[in-house]
Every structure is written in C-alpha cells, then in structure tokens.
C-alpha cells in the first residue's frame, strides 16, 4: 500500500465523527491493506510497534522539527518549525503546511530512475532503522532518516508521518474500533478477536491471522513467553459488596509495590514487564534471580515487587519506583533499595494457558510452583467478615496497603477493570467517636488495651455504635494503652469501662441499623485511623449525625 493511500484514509477517518462510520473506514482500510495489513493495523492507531514490544522510536520533538525543517526547503530552521507549531498547535498541520521534496535523490539520476512513491512498507522499515539507531551520533542519524522520509512526502503524507513519529496520531481510532474492524473485514466474531488480542497484544498479528486463518487461527492464538499481556485490574469495592456478590471471597494482601509480569523460560530468557508492558528486566535483577533459582517450568506469573528494608519490612511505593525507572548503575541502586517479588497469579505453566481457569485453580498452580511459600502471596477463602477483618488487620500491621477481594471463580481478563477484583475502598466518611470501653488483649497483647468500644454523643450521654479492634499495630496499641489507662473506671475480667476522655477518628464501610449497640446503629467494618488529640468528648460526633448518615 502506498503511504499516500494510507494518509488519504487517515484524513477521511479524522473528518468522521460517528464511531460506526470510523469502524467502516478502518474496515475497508484493513481489507485493502494487502501485504501491509500488520503495519496498517498499527499505524491507524498511531503505533509503529506491537503493544507487547518495548521498542520505541526514541524521537524527541526537536529531532522531528529538525527533519521537517531540513526537508522544508531553504533556510527553514527547527526553530521556525517550533514557532509555527506554537501558532498552529499541532505537528501534523505544521508538517502539512510545508512544501517538501526540494531535495532530489540520487535514484532519479540512475538508469530506471527511482522516484517511486513512498510506501507504507518503506515508512515502517525506515522507522525500524530509526528505532535501532543508538549510541553517539544516533540523533543525527534519526534526523537523516526522518528527513529522507519527509523529503518524499506530500502535504497529507507529511501530516500523518509527523503525527505517527511523535505518537500523536489522534484520528479517533481506538482499540475497540480496530477490534471491530478486524471482525468486520475478515468476518470473524468480535469476542474471539478480543480474546486473541488479549493473549497476543498485537493488533497487526491478530488482523493477519484473522485474514489468513480465520476463526480457527484466532482461537489457536496463545500466550507466548516474552510477550507481555495487559494486567488484570481491580476496581474499588467493599467487603459488603464481596460478601453479597460471591458465596466465598478470595482475600489477599494488597502489596504497596509495583505490578510486574514475569515471563520465565528455564531454557531461554527471563523477562520482567511493568504494568504498562514496558520491559523492566534490567532494572530488577532480584526478580530474574528469583525466577532462575526457583522456577523450573516455563511460566508467566503476575505479581508485585515491593521494596524492603534491611529487616525485610516493606518500604513505601516510591522506593520501588526509584528502582523501576533505573537504567544505569542498577547494582548501586540495589544496594540502596532491595526489592523482592510477590506473586499472586499464574497465567501460564509449561505450555498451558490458564487465563480461562478459575482464580482458585490458578492460585493452586502458583502454590505448587512456589512450594516453600517464598514469593507467594497467600490467598484465603472465606465468607466470614471477621476473618476478612483479621486478614486486613494483619496486612496493615505488616506494613502493607490493605486487602484485595476477588471472585474465586473468575477468569483472568487482561486489561479489564472488572468487578471480579476489588481493592477495598478507602473510607468515604469518618466519624469522631469517644472511647467508652476496651478489653485487655491476649497472648503477646495481654498488657495492651484493645477492642475499643466506640460511642457517639447524644446530648449529655454517650451511646455505643461499635467496636474497633483492627488496623492497629502493637506500637500504636502501646501508645493507646498509655493514653487510656488513666481513664479506667471499672474493670471486669478483661473488660474495662472507660471515662469518656479520648476521641478516635474511625473509618467504616457503612452504617447499619442494629440492636447490638445502644445507639441503635452499628458501624460496619470500623477502622481505627488515629487519635483526635485536638478534640474533647464534647466535640465528638453525635447520634444525630450517625442517623443522618444512615438515612443518607
């Protein structure tokens, strides 16, 4: 396909407002793409390389301006291009505003004479060369290569070449449009195209397979080691949601780390990809070492890397990011911040794709791979809210972010933010409650007060609304005990009555009507957030506020 033909279609698509009409245009573009189908399916989305491929053109705006300036004719400088961009606001329009082709090629003077129109294939191959250029002088070489392309462009070709090069295609073609167009152009069902896209992350490949091999070919597309797939995502949710939706809930700790996908082939390469499918292998040697040392089968695992301090306790997310972005001096960075992987899902083992398998099966496979539990994120199955609370408390105490709630029967759907994975929603509202009672702990917590009874004001009296026992570290319990012990009124076994003196800020999922507490309401999943040292019991929240929150 000639690049001019592609540019014409891109122009038509850009002028189109209706999604359906765009899909029609893309459909006919793909149908006419012939040998260039794979490239065209990516170009139309403004991509040069497949999504799984970490290769980038590494062309800065300045490099592009210089190439345009050089092709634009006499005494046009990169600054002139930049000035025009400031006026026009968009690089495609700037490129289209110049008259290219002033520089002739030597081909025009050889026998048989060159002068061929630019093809999609040539543009693609030149951009591959461009991506490969590195080292000293590579920016000059990139300018040379781009100049060579622009020099052969008409206005319309230049418009879309400039946008393609700077990843600013923006003609309104999203992933969904290409998916639907592949389905329409090659007469295959959209959901099967979608599945093939999920496993391959390669619109070009999927389009070509759909055309050459049809549905059978699409269905035979599998995960491939070394090609990352999009990560399955979670949405915010509550324990209440989970318990209502599913018979049992799978609960995991939510690690304060960065998402990684490990592709490990014991006889080949080990690669680590970020959530954006960027290759971060070199930045994270610990993950590679972990895989080389422990995994004997070819696998694709989903997990998090967390930064840990010398004692093995987790460090904040920012510390992981510092490692993630690291390109040089990885060994030095590693001395400063150590990371370790924790895996919670298994997408592929030894030739077998597990995307369709239920979470519990996938996790069972993961457990058998990581038999000694090192690097394994534990999964609990439960329908008991108290157990969920306890898991949450342990997670928080361990310095982690909280918990994930997952549907135990759900498949792994790459790139989807569905309701099968919930990250426990942070509290929307908080209440300032007076502590009117407590219990002495057990075991190692025997000397601490815990399980605090919470009350709200009702005129001059206090009415209970719940108890908070979770989300509090030992260190905090010690502080709270010191703070509360002087206010003990009476003691009966482990139970303690407290003089209303201390105010807690408490988070909760929702308020329920309940006969259990004297207020007639109960806080569901209350969590201790902190002591309001600035507040007296007289400033605490009232029963009236609880009632109005309940009534919404």
């Amino acid at each position, binding site marked *: 396909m000639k690049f001019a033909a592609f540019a014409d279609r891109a122009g038509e698509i850009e002028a189109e407002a209706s999604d359906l009409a765009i899909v029609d245009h893309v459909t006919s573009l793909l149908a006419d793409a012939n040998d260039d189908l794979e490239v065209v399916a990516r170009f139309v989305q403004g991509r040069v390389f497949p999504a799984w491929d970490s290769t980038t053109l590494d062309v800065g705006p300045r490099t592009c301006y210089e190439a345009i300036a050089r092709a634009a004719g*006499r005494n046009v400088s990169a600054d002139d291009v930049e000035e025009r961009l400031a006026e026009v606001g968009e690089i495609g329009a700037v490129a289209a505003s110049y008259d290219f082709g002033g*520089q002739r*090629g030597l081909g025009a*003077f050889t026998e048989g004479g060159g002068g061929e129109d630019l093809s999609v294939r040539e543009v693609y191959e030149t951009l591959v060369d461009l991506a490969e250029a590195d080292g000293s002088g590579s920016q000059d070489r990139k300018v040379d290569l781009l100049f060579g392309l622009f020099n052969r462009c008409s206005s319309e070709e230049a418009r879309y070449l400039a946008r393609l090069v700077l990843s600013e295609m923006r003609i309104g073609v999203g992933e969904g449009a290409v998916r639907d167009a592949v389905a329409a152009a090659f007469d295959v069902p959209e959901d099967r195209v979608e599945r093939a896209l999920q496993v391959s992350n390669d619109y070009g490949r999927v389009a070509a397979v759909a055309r050459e091999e049809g549905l059978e070919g699409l269905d035979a597309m599998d995960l491939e080691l070394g090609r990352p797939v999009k990560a399955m995502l979670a949405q915010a949710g509550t324990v209440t949601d989970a318990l209502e939706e599913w018979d049992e809930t799978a609960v995991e700790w939510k690690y304060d780390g960065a998402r990684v996908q490990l592709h490990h082939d014991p006889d080949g390469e080990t690669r680590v990809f970020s959530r954006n499918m960027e290759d971060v292998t070199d930045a994270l040697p610990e993950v590679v070492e972990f895989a080389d040392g422990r995994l004997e089968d070819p696998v694709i695992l989903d997990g998090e890397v967390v930064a840990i301090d010398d004692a093995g306790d987790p460090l904040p997310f920012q510390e992981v990011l510092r490692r993630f972005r690291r390109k040089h001096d990885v060994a030095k960075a590693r001395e400063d911040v150590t990371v370790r992987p924790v895996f919670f899902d298994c997408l592929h083992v030894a030739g077998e794709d597990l995307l369709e398998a239920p979470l519990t099966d996938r996790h069972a496979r993961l457990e058998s791979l990581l038999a000694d539990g090192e690097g394994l994120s534990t999964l609990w199955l439960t329908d008991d809210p108290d157990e969920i609370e306890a898991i949450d408390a342990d997670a928080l105490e361990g310095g982690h972010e909280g918990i994930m709630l997952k549907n135990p029967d759900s498949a792994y759907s790459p790139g989807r933010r569905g309701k099968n994975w919930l990250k426990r929603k942070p509290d929307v509202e908080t209440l300032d409650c007076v502590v009117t009672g407590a219990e002495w702990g057990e075991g190692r917590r025997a000397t601490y007060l815990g399980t605090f009874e919470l009350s709200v004001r009702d005129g001059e009296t206090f009415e209970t609304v719940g108890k908070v026992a979770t989300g509090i570290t030992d260190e905090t319990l010690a502080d709270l005990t010191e703070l509360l012990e002087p206010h003990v009124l009476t003691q009966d076994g482990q139970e303690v009555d407290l003089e209303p003196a201390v105010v807690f800020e408490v988070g909760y999922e929702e308020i329920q009507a309940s006969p259990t507490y004297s207020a007639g309401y109960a806080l569901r999943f209350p969590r201790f957030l902190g002591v309001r040292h600035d507040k007296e019991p007289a400033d605490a929240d009232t029963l009236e506020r609880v009632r109005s929150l309940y009534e919404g």
Partner: protein
Amino acid sequence: MFKAIVSAETLSSALDSVSVLVDECKIHLEEEGLAIRAVDPANVGMVDLSLDAAAFESYEADGGLIGVDLSRLEDIAGMAESGQLIQLELDEETRKLQIQIDGLEYTLALIDPDSIRQEPDIPDLDLPAEVVLEGKDVNRSVKAADMVSDHIALGVDDAEEYFYVDAEGDTDDVHLELTEADLISLQVGPAHSLFSLDYLKDMNKAIPSDTEVTLELGEEFPIKMHFGFAEGQGQVTYMLAPRIQSD
C-alpha cells in the same frame, strides 16, 4: 582471508571520508585493495572509495566482504599515535576483525553485511563542467555559504569562464568567483545546481585542504567531487544530488 598492515593516518582518512555519510558500511576486501561504496539513508549523498594495496605496508586479501560499525573502527584507529602502524586480520571462524596497534589487541565484532543498507548504483553522469581546485578553496566556499544559508549554489559561467559559489540567506547573501587563475584547471560548460549544505559540510570535513579536488557539475544535476589521499593511492568520489531550484 584478509591480513593487512597500514599506517594510522591512511586508515583514518579512509574511514573518515565514509563515516561522514553513514554509520555502517560494507568493505570489499579485493586482491588489489579495499573498496567501499555507501549512500546515506535519504539516498542523497554517496561515497565511492578505493584504497590500493600499494597504500598498505603489507596487504593480502582474496575478495571477501565484511560489514563494520564505522565509529567503532574509527575509535580504535584513533588509539594509534601518528606514524604508528595498525595490523588488521580477519578471523574467518569467528567473523571478527583482530586489530593490533603495537601491544594493543582489539577484537572487533563485525556486522552482518546483509543487514547493512544496500550499496547504491552509481549514476552514470556525463557532466559538462569540470573544476579542479585546492581543498582549501572548497573549504572556504562551504564556510562562506554556511554563514548565511543552509544551501549553496555551485555553477560555471561559460561565457565569462569562471566558477562561482552563491548562497542566499534570509537577509544576507554570499557570492564567490574563482577564475581560471585561481583554479588548477577549468573546463567550462553550462552548470548551475543547488545543494544542501548539510551534506556538503559533512563531505567537506573529509577533504584535506592541501589536496587537489575535481568537481564535476551540470545544470540541476548531482555534483561529483573527486580527490585522492594516501599519496594518491586512495581515491574518494562523492556524489550529491541537487535541490530543486524553483523555490
């Protein structure tokens, strides 16, 4: 097989005159010497180089082809002091180039020649005008034009019999005339073509100022620039396509 000993200057001159256009090239290891032909990615500038076996202290080759990363090889040659000899030997087994400079040994990985841009067809041009001048005059012309413009017009006035250089900037212009007295020789003919200084500046870098340079010119035709190095045992021909002058 390929085994050769060459002075650092000669090797560097050869490499530099190619590296101004391309980063990688194929080197033909012919019995009678080395040959390199390369064109820049935009197919605008071309170099055709030969270095005779006589330019080497010793030379043995039987017609092989290797691909090299020019900047890497230039860096290695740069390790030699002036007057030092560089020994090159191709290891056929490993496809690596063994390079020795006194005690320094460098094993250079070669590039698959098939992965390097195809060598250009050389346009067969019969250009009417020929100007022979000193390298320093080419140098001066390019420098003067570069002060005002990014393009340079080269031409021959066949009535008045002189070679001229024109450069038009947004505000300033440059004009330079060299008559037969200023030149080594002049064969007049209708010639006027416009060239990009981006290319000409790079090519000029490789032209020694004390060398004799032959320019062949036509009307809106490529320019051919020919010069020798290594005491005439090396030859370089540059060819550069013109810009259209209509604007």
